């Protein structure tokens, strides 16, 4: 199974190898060639709670947009948000708690409206741990982990268990025993009037159980009986005991005889033309259950409660484990239709018509600054550390950069901020004459089209300075394949591809479209 995970923090460690990941808080790339999707946005960590609230609100807009872009036959697993670190100064300010609650409520609304969206409640996992175990500031500050990486095994176990319960197909047929299962006592010994059904406890509990199963059958579950009894006695009871809810007509088929139950169930499967893997067998007798488990391992056999008063809890679990409907029925759809009409306006405000509108809403400020004493060490550090969005991956020291500047290179760095905060200096470009020697950007700012806006702005500056042509180079490494065609996307032409995968580019600046979208507020220093 391949799956793509949308995330806002570092969470790779919590997933198996077949998962791939979006950039941080990046919804610009929605791959279509994966089987499933996961959405796991953790509570953003910032001191200013007003900003945190704003950011949480923006997550819902992004998710709504992402869901519209995904094939509705593919499952989107959405994890709820939990506040797993102690928020400072919150004694009289519940705004973050409120925003998280609101976000989670909206997730459940989204699940109602989209049958391919399944919400998993992360607190089922997180509440097992005290706050100091589940969140570690050290890992947050060094790697932007929103949850302690040491819990990765426990998380994987929990997550995979949840996944299999989602993947579980709804069973079709419920096979029921009679004595001490649908009523108390043994029909052959206690007689039609002696069995416990209706009236006082325990009859009351069995009545509840029958009523519940009767309602389950209305939702499309086929009922059958498999009981060791005299058929005549049972038919008599069905006809003459006024309290019995589940009678002959309630069952699509029955085997009431003294033959072993595995053989009977196999016959029922043939008669009803339903695969054995769609059967659930409920019997109070552990020996019968064990026999069926051994002989027919594809049949689901839940444990039966010891006491009749446990039947309601047992029934609830039975439904959750085997008969839960994930897809929406026609009737539900009608209800949803109304709901949709009412919510239409709110929705229009809530999600973006297209990606441009989304970018517009971010209020992106791009500052481009020539290298100077204050940023040289940051630029050098970025050349050392940046692996993925790095066209040539040349590593330089502070001293290298100073000497380049002295010999006439032009070097700029880029800072990006948006309404959610300032990312600081997160990229650089280095021009040796008219050749782009290095171009690199931090993954944190990718996904907003800033990368092309940056390059185009630089090329415009060069053009204004009288430069006509620019050349560039892409050198492949194990980690930078995502930029193998970046220059093509910017409008440069590839002039040569070498055997090692490296590419040479050139472009005449006057032939290039150097305009950038006006939602980037570019400021050149």
């Amino acid at each position, binding site marked *: 199974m391949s799956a793509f995970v949308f995330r806002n923090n570092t969470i790779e*460690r919590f997933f198996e190898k077949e998962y791939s990941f979006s950039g941080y808080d990046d919804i610009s790339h929605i791959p279509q060639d994966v089987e499933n999707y996961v959405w796991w946005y953790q509570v953003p960590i910032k001191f200013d709670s007003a900003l945190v609230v704003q950011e949480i609100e923006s997550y819902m807009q992004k998710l709504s947009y992402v869901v519209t872009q995904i094939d509705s036959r593919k499952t989107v697993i959405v994890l709820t948000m939990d506040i797993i670190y102690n928020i400072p100064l919150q004694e009289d300010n519940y705004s973050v708690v409120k925003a998280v609650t609101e976000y989670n409520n909206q997730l459940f609304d989204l699940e109602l409206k989209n049958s391919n969206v399944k919400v998993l409640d992360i607190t089922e996992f997180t509440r097992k741990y005290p706050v100091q175990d589940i969140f570690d500031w*050290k890992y947050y500050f*060094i*790697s932007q982990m929103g949850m302690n990486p*040491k819990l990765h095994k426990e998380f994987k176990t929990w997550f995979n268990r949840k996944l299999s319960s989602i993947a579980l197909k709804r069973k079709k047929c419920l096979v029921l025993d009679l004595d001490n299962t649908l009523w108390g006592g043994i029909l052959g010994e206690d007689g039609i009037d002696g069995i416990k059904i209706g009236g006082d406890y325990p009859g009351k509990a069995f009545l509840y159980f029958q009523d519940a199963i009767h309602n389950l059958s209305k939702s499309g579950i086929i009922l059958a009986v498999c009981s060791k009894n005299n058929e005549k006695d049972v038919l008599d009871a069905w006809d003459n005991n006024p309290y019995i809810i589940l009678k002959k007509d309630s069952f699509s088929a029955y085997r009431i005889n003294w033959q072993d139950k595995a053989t009977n169930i196999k016959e029922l499967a043939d008669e009803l033309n339903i695969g054995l893997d769609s059967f659930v067998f409920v019997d109070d007798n552990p020996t019968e259950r064990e026999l069926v488990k051994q002989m027919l391992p594809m049949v689901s056999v839940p444990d039966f409660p010891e006491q009749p008063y446990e039947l309601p809890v047992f029934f609830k679990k039975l439904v959750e484990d085997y008969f839960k409907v994930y897809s929406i029925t026609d009737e539900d759809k009608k209800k949803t239709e109304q709901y949709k009409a009412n919510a239409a306006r709110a929705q229009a405000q809530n999600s973006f018509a297209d990606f441009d509108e989304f970018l517009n809403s971010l209020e992106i400020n791009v500052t481009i600054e020539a290298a100077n004493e204050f940023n040289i060490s940051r630029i050098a550090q970025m050349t050392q550390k940046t*692996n993925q969005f790095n066209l040539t991956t040349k590593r330089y020291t502070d001293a290298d950069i100073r000497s380049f500047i002295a010999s006439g290179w032009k070097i700029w760095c880029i800072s990006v901020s948006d309404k959610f905060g300032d990312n600081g200096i997160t990229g650089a470009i280095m021009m040796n004459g008219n050749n782009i020697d290095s171009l690199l950007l931090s993954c944190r700012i990718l996904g907003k089209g800033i990368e092309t806006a940056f390059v185009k702005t630089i090329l415009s500056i060069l053009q204004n300075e009288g430069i006509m042509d620019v050349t560039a180079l892409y050198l492949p490494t*194990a*980690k930078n394949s995502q930029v193998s065609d970046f220059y093509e996307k910017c409008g440069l032409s590839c002039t040569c591809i070498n055997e090692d995968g490296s590419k040479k580019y050139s472009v005449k600046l006057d032939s290039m479209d150097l305009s950038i979208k006006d939602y980037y507020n570019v400021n050149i220093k």
Partner: protein
Amino acid sequence: MEEKVLEILKEVFELETVDQTCSQDTCDKWDSMGQLNLVAELEDAFDISLEPEEIGKMKSFKDVMRILSYKLK
């Protein structure tokens, strides 16, 4: 300890073979994500807490051994 460290390196970076020359330069999977996994495993295995400065300096098997020996002294 040396053996245990090598075993962790092998597992974390999914190596077929591992020796004392293992470092960020020779090992593809030893990137920032790999570093994080390595640190989490080492902290668990040796019951220690590594400081960010130490983590920053851990770029090879030899670095790991040096820092661990110091921590476990």
